[in-house]
């Protein structure tokens, strides 16, 4: 089972490789990827260096081209595919059908991974992408229970990649417009959810307020830890009841599921967080490397170590973690 780690910068990429990632995924410095944030991602020069570093260490490089091509501007997405090939990347992670079509026709040898943003959650959908674009792997949206992941695994010969750790998207990825409803910008169109330029923090008599495009997301008292105002993690009222109507600030953590994921034949476990620091990448990668190795050495004795959980909780949203949709109770 491959450990696939995020790299939003060259230092993060090197850190991931040094700490035991089998593969890293990166994005270009434009809106062709779903983490299009200022100061993040790779220009041509950095990307060439990154690719060389990965090759020198005999690891794999995946390039995320996972937003949807704008009409009249498809070239930017197609160029991203060209770059990916020129670099000698091992795989392109693509969401848009136009981009997949371009890639499979121009570069039949390029390994294509279906991005989570394509939102393929069932065998019929996976069939569509396999038959039309010969995808080798599908990244599963974080909406399936582990039972459903197993069912999929039994019914397809496409490799499965699952999210193992990181910020938790609670909606079927690629089909969530909450961000553009609030701000006009969404992961699909702009490559960002709840973009930072719309975020405002304000000390008020009611406490510290976080706003997204002026809409109140949450209020914190002085003893509460404030989190980034991702809009689905806000506190809202339903019939006068105030609570996290959609989801609490929390991160996905599936360390305890490693045996099940292995037995299910999952090809790759993905760590979320290209927007996070090299320090984050280091801690997560070390823990996950240790966990996977520990399972492989003695599957029967596998147990989540307490210090792994401590490390992960410290870098988690709201310092708490969940099994998310993998566990039916969460749903």
């Amino acid at each position, binding site marked *: 089972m491959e450990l696939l780690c995020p790299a939003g910068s060259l230092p993060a990429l090197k850190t991931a490789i040094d700490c035991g990632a089998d593969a890293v995924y990166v994005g270009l410095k434009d809106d062709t990827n779903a983490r299009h944030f200022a100061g993040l991602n790779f220009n041509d020069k950095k990307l060439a260096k990154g690719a060389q570093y990965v090759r020198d260490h005999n690891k794999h490089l995946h390039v995320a081209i996972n937003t*949807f*091509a*704008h*009409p*009249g501007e*498809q070239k930017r997405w197609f160029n991203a595919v060209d770059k990916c090939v020129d670099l000698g990347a091992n795989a392109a992670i693509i969401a*848009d*059908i*136009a981009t997949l*079509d371009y890639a499979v026709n121009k570069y039949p040898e390029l390994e294509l991974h279906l991005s989570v*943003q*394509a*939102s*393929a*959650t*069932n*065998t*019929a*959908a996976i*069939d*569509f992408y396999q*038959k039309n674009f010969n995808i080798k792997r599908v990244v599963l949206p*974080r*909406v*399936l229970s582990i039972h*459903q992941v197993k*069912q999929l695994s039994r*019914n397809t010969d496409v490799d499965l990649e699952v999210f193992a750790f990181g910020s938790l998207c*609670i*909606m*079927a990825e690629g*089909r*969530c*417009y*909450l961000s*553009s*409803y*609030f*701000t*006009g910008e*969404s992961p*699909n*169109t702009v490559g960002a959810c709840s973009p930072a330029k719309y975020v405002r923090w304000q000390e008020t008599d009611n406490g510290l307020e976080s706003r997204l*495009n002026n*809409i*109140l*997301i949450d209020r914190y008292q002085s003893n509460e830890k404030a989190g980034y105002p991702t809009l689905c993690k*806000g*506190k*809202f*009222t*339903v*019939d006068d*009841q105030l609570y996290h*109507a*959609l989801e609490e600030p929390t991160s996905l953590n599936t360390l305890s599921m490693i045996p099940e994921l292995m037995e299910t034949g999952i090809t790759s476990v993905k760590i979320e967080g290209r927007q996070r620091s090299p320090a984050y990448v280091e801690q997560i990668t070390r823990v996950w490397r240790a966990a996977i190795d520990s399972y492989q050495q003695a599957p029967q004795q596998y147990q989540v170590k307490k210090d792994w959980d401590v490390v992960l909780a410290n870098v988690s949203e709201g310092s708490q973690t969940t099994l998310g*949709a993998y566990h*039916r109770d*969460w*749903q």
Partner: protein
Amino acid sequence: MKLSLGPLLYYWPKQTTEDFYQQALSSDADIIYLGETVCSKRRELKARDWINLAKALNNQGKEIVLSSMALLEAPSEVKVLKQLCENGELSVEANDIGAIQLLSEKKVPFVCGPAINCYNAHVLKLFVNQGMQRWVMPVELSRDWLQKALIDAQAMGIREHFEVEVFAHGHLPLAYSARCFTARSENKAKDDCELCCIKYPQGRITSTQEGQQVFVLNGIQTQSGYCYNLLNDVESMRGLVDVVRVSPSSLDSLATLQQFKQQILGDSQTIKHDNLQCNGYWHKIAGLSLHQ
């Protein structure tokens, strides 16, 4: 321009649903979509019932289309989808790419629904080749985006091969989750939901701590808090849009169809929106904004 009544997104009792569609037959809609698109646990009308209802409404002056589910997770849900695709008579609105796979295999013509990620003319071309006859644009896209996509479609020689439909009235379907937010609002787990969404025939309103209506919870679907209303934008749709969609929320939606009909005929005036309405997406701004 034609008018359509979109699929019912909420969960209503069987009798209410059937009565609604009987009335819809004498509405201004040219096209009626029907079927469960949100949650497979909603079984007041089972797949077979929807198909029968759709067939009973067919050949009475309206085009009838069967709508399918947006989020398919279990093999049982794909089975139901197959049943819809094999109805033998009616075209189907695909709301998941899996539906396009099944429909194109069976050579059944289809409508590409708003929950499918079709953002440019290259995708439209591929779908046309697979049997797409109509494209319902994703709700987050603007007039500007549509226009650019259609210029490309024209250049590719496919513009005449499909119709364009725009979601023009109702609470916008914005997201789908594994989690049921209506059950959560009642402190229930999804597996133990008791189908409580039937108590909320127009979903559950969700507001910020300042009382701003931001979402409507509808089972696993999250909708816009404000009602999208493009009544004043019909003029700007001419030449681009072939079908204007009204999403049903109650019998009032049939009156809304009438208002749109008057707009299309050009004999209506500009309405004043109330502050619980929005039209931002069409104008290329935040969806919840109101461009006056």
